[in-house]
């Protein structure tokens, strides 16, 4: 007899489908295992939860339905007033994916010499330190003196000094970067972020280290890398391809962190190695999709998706309905405008929004 029987019985009991004999079988089982009581009670509580009642989208749909019945000459008691102008057929939006090819990468390459000679406003803050940064809503690609290439996502900054390439190749990153590092065994490539240091010999990987996020993520595509967490210098972690390392920011390290001391549950480690996420037929991991100009998320909370969208589209989000922060969403966007993306998400995931200039409000 397999363990599955237990789950079949328990699920039948919860859904009211168990016969008296089955209930007895289950009871006998549970009697032998008092330690299951707590969990089973939790499941029963979970089962009883009802969905919340609001559905504002349906209000619009109802108006359209009445209108349609009128057009079809179906008698329906007192008909409502003619539709207000805002609500028309085009409120029913199509679910669509933009057809086009992805947009070419913004802004091209910057070679070492050009930093000093070109006076581009994006680069060069001081002669000692080279700094490349991107604003919200834009990305850039940087070539380092040794030929390594870094794609910087929106709202990010990469710095390195003039000793780069002499004995070590050191850079500092805030935000998100996708690195393609030239193999040079004798000159390790080291990335410093606020929480972790990453040492690489030659490889392709992605690092997400936005100070306002709860965590730092390092995703390995090819090669191998060694990650050291700053407050645990003896813990070196080596990643294999298609793994990612997530480091949760400690409270107090940067003023913006949302994770409060008491919210860190015991069972969740502060450091976790996970698999990279791939959407159905994609060859590029969700974590690195942004370099191909795709904004991609799979089973993420709206609160986190909103942060990604803020950087991608250069907008700000405000959740007037806090509950919507917990909606789970999945999606991929390439050349859509923010309005198109919001419309597509609204259709599938049940929320309302308003966008004014660059501010998005969620209801």
């Amino acid at each position: 007899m397999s363990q599955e029987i237990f789950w079949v019985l328990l699920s039948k009991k919860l859904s009211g489908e168990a016969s008296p004999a089955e209930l007895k079988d289950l009871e006998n089982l549970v009697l032998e295992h008092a330690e299951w009581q707590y969990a089973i009670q939790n499941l029963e509580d979970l089962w009883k939860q009802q969905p919340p009642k609001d559905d504002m989208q349906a209000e619009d749909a109802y108006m359209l339905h009445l209108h349609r019945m009128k057009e079809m000459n179906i008698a329906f008691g007192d008909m409502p007033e003619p539709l207000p102008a805002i609500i028309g057929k085009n409120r029913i939006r199509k679910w669509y994916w933009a057809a086009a090819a992805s947009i070419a990468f913004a802004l091209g390459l910057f070679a070492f010499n050009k930093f000093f000679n070109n006076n581009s406003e994006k680069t060069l803050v001081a002669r000692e330190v080279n700094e490349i940064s991107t604003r919200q809503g834009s990305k850039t690609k940087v070539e380092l003196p040794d030929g390594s290439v870094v794609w910087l996502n929106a709202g990010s900054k990469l710095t390195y000094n003039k000793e780069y390439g002499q004995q070590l190749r050191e850079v500092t990153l805030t935000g998100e970067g996708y690195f393609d590092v030239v193999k040079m065994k004798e000159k390790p490539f080291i990335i410093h972020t606020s929480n972790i240091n990453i040492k690489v010999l030659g490889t392709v990987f992605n690092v997400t280290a936005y100070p306002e996020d709860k965590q730092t993520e390092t995703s390995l595509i090819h090669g191998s890398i060694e990650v050291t967490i700053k407050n645990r210098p003896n813990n070196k972690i080596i990643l294999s391809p298609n793994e990612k390392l997530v480091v949760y920011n400690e409270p107090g390290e940067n003023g913006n962190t949302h994770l409060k001391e008491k919210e860190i549950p015991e069972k969740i480690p502060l450091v976790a190695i996970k698999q990279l996420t791939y959407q159905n037929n994609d060859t590029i991991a969700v974590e690195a999709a942004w370099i191909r100009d795709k904004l991609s998320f799979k089973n993420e909370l709206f609160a986190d998706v909103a942060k990604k969208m803020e950087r991608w589209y250069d907008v700000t989000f405000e959740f007037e309905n806090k509950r919507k922060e917990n909606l789970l969403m999945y999606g991929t966007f390439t050349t859509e405008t923010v309005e198109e993306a919001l419309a597509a998400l609204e259709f599938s995931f049940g929320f309302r929004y308003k966008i004014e200039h660059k501010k998005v409000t969620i209801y």
Partner: protein
Amino acid sequence: MHENEHIKRLLSAIALNNDQTACKELFLLLHSRLKQFAYSILKSGEEAEELVSDVFIRIWQKRDQLTTIESPLFYFYTTTKNLSLNRLKKQKRQVSLSAEDWLVQMNSIYFDPEQLMMTEEIMRQIKKAVNDLPSRCRLIFKLIKEDGLKYKEVADLLQLSVKTIEAQMAIALRRISKCMHFDIKNSLYTGIKK
């Protein structure tokens, strides 16, 4: 399932009094789930919206006969399915229920500290686990947990066997339990008589 009771009351009010408020309330109650169901079959938001409207027109036209249905939600889902498949037929498209293309948003799994003795983080994982279920499994889970359909009704609706429904529900429940660190080991099984 107390939602079915509520729906039956609305249907009575509609049939006996042509109650407009009840009509609207019924619509608001059913719209999103029926639309998702239709959308999964028709693959078009616009068509799904029209389809749901058609379902409600039918409810309105047949209101007098609806007061005796035992299981209204099952009836509405079945109507939605049939109208959708008919529409596909008329458009000469392939008439079938997809295995894994279901759009299913579950709304009853959320963090309410007053009702649940669980941490927010565990709830997050549960939500994620539910969303990671294969879509048909999640659909079955939702139809049973949120809509209160019976196993036989779901089997009928999705053209599957009751055994399949039992197995899928077991899978869903087990995955959720794993998030709560609840799983059972092999050593068990003496107590159950066949």
